[in-house]
């Protein structure tokens, strides 16, 4: 009887360890998969219109145009620039490797353009003049641009402006 109790305790201990490890790994695992789907790091990827065939991220909005830059700041920083399309909702948001949204700026805050230097405390890069510095909590993550197609007839103009957004990698002096 005592031996059976020991085996049950051992099984529960294994369950606790598996539960803890999988729980802690869930956000990072999900984000890593999403980043791999998005494409090459430190490069902007302008996605096409969301349709029923879109399988990038669950519950996408068919009214938005998405552009993404998966980032890897291990050896440098990312210079993020974009003009803001006029007359519609637009935002740039930054997510860390644990899926946390650590920065967002919309068209009203941006006043025509954004110019960000996404960096970590561990790299030393030549800073572009005028860029707002944003420190990422983790070296890897995602920059996500959302542009609302508020009027179908404005689609071509909105799409042309959002495609001017860019993500440029700046290599660290030390690397």
């Amino acid at each position: 009887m005592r031996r059976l109790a020991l085996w049950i305790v051992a099984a529960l201990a294994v369950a606790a360890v598996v539960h803890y490890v999988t729980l802690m790994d869930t956000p990072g695992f999900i984000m890593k998969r999403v980043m791999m789907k998005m494409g090459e790091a430190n490069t902007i990827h302008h996605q096409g219109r969301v349709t029923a065939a879109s399988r990038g991220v669950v519950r996408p909005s068919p009214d938005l145009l998405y552009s993404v830059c998966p980032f890897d700041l291990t050896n440098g920083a990312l210079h993020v620039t974009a003009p803001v399309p006029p007359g519609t909702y637009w935002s740039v948001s930054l997510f860390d490797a644990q899926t946390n949204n650590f920065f967002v700026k919309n068209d009203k805050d941006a006043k025509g353009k954004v110019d960000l230097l996404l960096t970590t405390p561990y790299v030393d890069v030549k800073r572009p003049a005028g860029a707002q510095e944003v420190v990422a909590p983790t070296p890897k993550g995602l920059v996500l641009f959302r542009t609302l197609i508020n009027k179908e007839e404005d689609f071509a103009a909105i799409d042309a402006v959002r495609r001017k957004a860019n993500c440029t990698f700046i290599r660290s002096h030390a690397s």
Partner: protein
Amino acid sequence: MDCPLRFLLKLLAVLIIGTALGLAATWLTVSKLSIGTVSDGPWRTSLLIGSAQSGPYLRANVALHGLLALNRGETMYYTADHDSAGGWLDGNCVYKIEGREPSARWWSITAYGADDYLMANKDDKWSISGETVQLKSDSTFIITASPRKAFSNWLPLSQRRFSLTIRLYNPGAGVVNDPANAMLPTIKRSVCL
């Protein structure tokens, strides 16, 4: 004293059972727990989506249910998988979504299939927004979510299990401060085909 083979078999059983229990506990706590949610009628929203939360349960929950979502000061997301009477949404039925325009700079209602992606339909129509909705003379609207084409404000359904999401971009302060009283539209089941 167990023979070595019997001991190894018991050890293997402990590892398998323990792993299964651990995975089941993770799945249950992450996928089924509604941590930090509030409801406004049939619509539910998580107050944690888009925010950096401490604690592994909250973090995993947000990662699974609100991936790449914005914080609620920027955007609020309400989801419904039940109608206002409490019944599961059924893609073989006709639903009337009635109400006033929500307090936000821009809003939309989107229908999703059971896999959380847009449902294929011949009209390539998946949402109705503040820009596209046809309002009545009293500034209210009725959206018809149904498998067959409706006269106006039609939201096509092409799967049996579906859910709806309302997005409020730059929501009004009243909604942000009191998300359980956002005055969101009702969802009433009409007929089933």
